[in-house]
C-alpha cells in the first residue's frame, strides 16, 4: 500500500491513532447521559478519526471506512432518525419529541424517555459524523466529482 504522503511516520501514526479516536468518540457518545458529552461531540470525534485517515494515508485508501459516495445518504438517514422519533411521538398523541408517547408497550415512561433520548442521539451522531466527512470530501472534490 503506497500512501499519498510517502512518509511512514505520518502513515503509521494516522493508522494507529484513528481507531483510538473513534473508540473515544463512542465513549463520549454513550457517556452523554452521565457527564459532558453527547451525540454532537461523539460524532465530531468519530469524524475526526476518519478525516485523520483521509489526511494521513490518502483519500483513495481511506474509502474502506466510510466511502465518499455514502456520506450524504448516511447524513440524511441520521436526520431522518432524529426527526422521525419526534414525529412518531406526535402520531401517538404527544408533543414533538415527547418520548413517553413512543409506541413501546413493555417499557415504563421513564425508561422510554431514557432510550428515546439515546435513539435520538444515535441519529445526531450519524448525521454529524457523515456530514463533516461530506464537507471535507466536497472541499477536496473527491466523491461525486469522481476524479479522486
Amino acid at each position: 500500500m503506497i500512501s499519498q504522503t510517502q512518509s511512514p511516520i505520518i502513515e503509521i501514526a494516522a493508522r494507529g491513532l484513528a481507531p483510538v479516536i473513534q473508540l473515544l468518540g463512542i465513549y463520549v457518545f454513550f457517556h452523554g447521559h452521565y457527564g459532558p458529552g453527547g451525540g454532537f461531540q461523539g460524532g465530531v470525534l468519530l469524524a475526526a478519526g476518519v478525516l485523520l485517515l483521509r489526511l494521513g494515508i490518502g483519500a483513495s485508501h481511506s474509502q474502506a471506512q466510510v466511502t465518499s459516495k455514502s456520506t450524504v445518504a448516511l447524513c440524511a438517514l441520521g436526520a431522518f432518525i432524529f426527526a422521525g422519533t419526534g414525529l412518531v411521538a406526535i402520531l401517538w398523541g404527544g408533543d414533538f419529541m415527547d418520548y413517553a408517547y413512543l409506541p413501546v408497550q413493555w417499557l415504563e415512561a421513564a425508561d422510554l424517555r431514557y432510550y428515546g433520548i439515546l435513539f435520538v442521539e444515535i441519529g445526531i451522531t450519524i448525521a454529524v459524523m457523515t456530514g463533516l466527512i461530506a464537507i471535507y470530501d466536497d472541499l477536496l472534490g473527491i466523491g461525486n466529482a469522481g476524479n479522486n
Partner: protein
Amino acid sequence: MELIANVLAVFFLLAGVTFMLVGSIGINRFPDVYCRAHAATKVDTLGIMLFVLGLVFFTGLSITSLKLILVAIFVSLTSPVAAHALTRRALLHGVKPWTKK
C-alpha cells in the same frame, strides 16, 4: 504523604511552565520555520506532558488521574508527528534551512 504529593505536583507544574516559557520565547526569536517548529514542539510535548503529570499528583489515584495519564500519552504521541508533517511539507516545498552567513 500528601505533602510529598503536593511538592511533586508543584515541581512538575513549575517544570512544565518553564518549558512553555522557554518554548514561547523560542517561537518568537528563532530565525526560520524549522527552528520554530522545534521550539513549538517543546511547548506541546514536554510542557503539556509535565503539566498534566503535575495535575495527576494533585488528584491522586482515581479514574481522573488515569484519564490525565492517557492525555499525556496521546499528546506525546501526536505532537511530534504533527511537527514532523509540518516541517516535512515545508522542506518539500522548498523552504531553505537557515544557515549562518
